């Protein structure tokens, strides 16, 4: 373990901007991407559910 | 004024509908600037020297590439006829189309130029001047280009003829635009170049829509 303090860890020996810039960008994008993918999935699901509901309503109308 | 805004909105909507279109003008700019180092070789000193020229030529070509579409789609499908017959003055609609063209093809280049400048290792103050020059220059390119687009409308061989007509007219913008950066690098100050660009922009903003409208009426005859 080469870090003596938390501050030293974050300073990264003077390369903080570059190291945290790299790791930060990776973390940010790699967290964002699955959320975007999931939202896409849930959007489709929602619209499918809406369609189902509309179908059912139409059916009810026909029956009554 | 309403019709003006409606035209801008319409053209933006059409462009967004072709999602890729907005981004691809930008990517063309990026790719063309990247082509030059590949053709010329990777020496940093040399590249730094020719960077402003390359960025300006690339911006000019990227604007040029979007020009044929400015009126041609509306011409082919008859919308332009409808515009000429519309109760709103044609000049207003044309001005709207030009503004939309700049928002789609010009503004993104201005925003992107600093990033590309970094690739050529330009420093911060040079990047500032470059961006400012492009901010003044790209609307000028759109305005002048619109005249050319209208003149070559429906003419056989349009796209290339357009380039031929418009590029010579772009030369002053290129000289003062790229010159501003070089003057700055040489420690001469870019003020003179920039104010000339601004003056040309004012002039073109006044006359170009008018000339474009006249050219369109001829094309419709």
């Amino acid at each position, binding site marked *: 373990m080469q870090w003596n303090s938390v501050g030293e860890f974050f300073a990264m020996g003077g390369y903080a901007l570059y190291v945290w810039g790299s790791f930060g*960008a990776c973390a940010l994008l790699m967290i964002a991407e699955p959320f975007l*993918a999931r939202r896409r*999935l849930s959007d489709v699901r929602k619209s*499918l559910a809406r369609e189902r509901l509309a179908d059912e309503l139409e059916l009810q109308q026909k029956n009554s | 004024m309403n019709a003006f805004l409606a035209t801008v909105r319409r053209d933006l909507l059409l462009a967004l509908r072709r999602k890729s279109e907005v981004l691809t003008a930008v990517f063309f700019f990026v790719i063309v600037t990247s082509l030059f180092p*590949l053709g010329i070789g990777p020496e940093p000193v040399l590249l730094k020297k020719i960077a402003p020229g390359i960025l300006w030529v690339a911006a000019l070509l990227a604007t040029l590439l979007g020009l044929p579409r400015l009126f041609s789609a509306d011409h082919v499908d008859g919308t332009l006829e409808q515009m000429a017959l519309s109760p709103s003055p044609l000049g207003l609609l044309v001005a709207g189309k030009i503004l939309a063209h700049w928002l789609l093809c010009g503004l993104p280049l201005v925003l992107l130029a600093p990033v590309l400048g970094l690739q050529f290792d330009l420093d911060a103050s040079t990047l500032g001047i470059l961006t400012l020059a492009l901010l003044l220059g790209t609307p000028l390119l759109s305005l002048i280009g619109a005249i050319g687009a209208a003149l070559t409308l429906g003419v056989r061989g349009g796209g290339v003829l357009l380039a031929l007509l418009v590029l010579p007219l772009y030369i002053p913008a290129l000289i003062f635009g790229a010159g501003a950066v070089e003057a700055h690098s040489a420690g001469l100050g870019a003020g003179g170049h920039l104010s000339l660009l601004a003056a040309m922009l004012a002039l073109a903003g006044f006359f170009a829509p008018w000339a474009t409208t006249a050219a369109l009426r001829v094309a419709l005859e």
Partner: protein
Amino acid sequence: MRQSIIQWFRFASPQSFYPLAGRMIPWFWAAAIIFGIGGLWISFFVAPTDAQQGEGYRIIFVHVPASWMSMFIYLVMAFWAGLGLALNTRVSGMMAQALAPTGALMAALSLWTGALWGKPMWGAWWVWDARLTSELILFFLYLGFMALQAAIDDPRRADKAGAILALVGVVNIPIIYFSVKWWNTLHQGSTINLNKAPSMAQTMLWGMLLMALAFWMYSIAVALMRVRAIILERERHTEWVKHAVE
């Protein structure tokens, strides 16, 4: 033989693939997280400070996996695309479409982390080095693929056009790679040479390996998530989708 292969791909219909993908995703996420934590631990707490580059070299632990993945994903994408074109299986086109954004993301990360590494090491964000340049071109190839697919709204047509482009690209990638390499090395040596990181310590190798595995698992997990969405979008009017989504 050929018949049985075709049979197999018929079996891999969207209908059977959708739940299968759903069951696999958590496992890949788990693997990605475990490998990721291990890799990060090594990269920050086990790997020693580099003698020449100080702490700056730690960027390697994301840079190299991202670079590798960006190249590898293109191959996989082209494989699926070619399969779709040859055997006309529906899932293949969807897989190719699902992989492209992740590949582009990896290429972008490689460029970004590389630029952030270059500034302290070479004093420039960007130099026109062979490897950098070919990575940039790879990024453009991804964007072209995505732009082409986005521009065509009939999914069947989009798949086929995308497949042709991906295959043309895959033929070109080695050509591009070597041309850029020679372009650079045939030149007088005015460019800064990309020094290989000095004799990598065993621990660094392990760190990179773990991170690469994490990126790999991550890519598979995200691509599967996206492909599920794409399956539903494209098959929304089939009976099974109506039943699958309660």
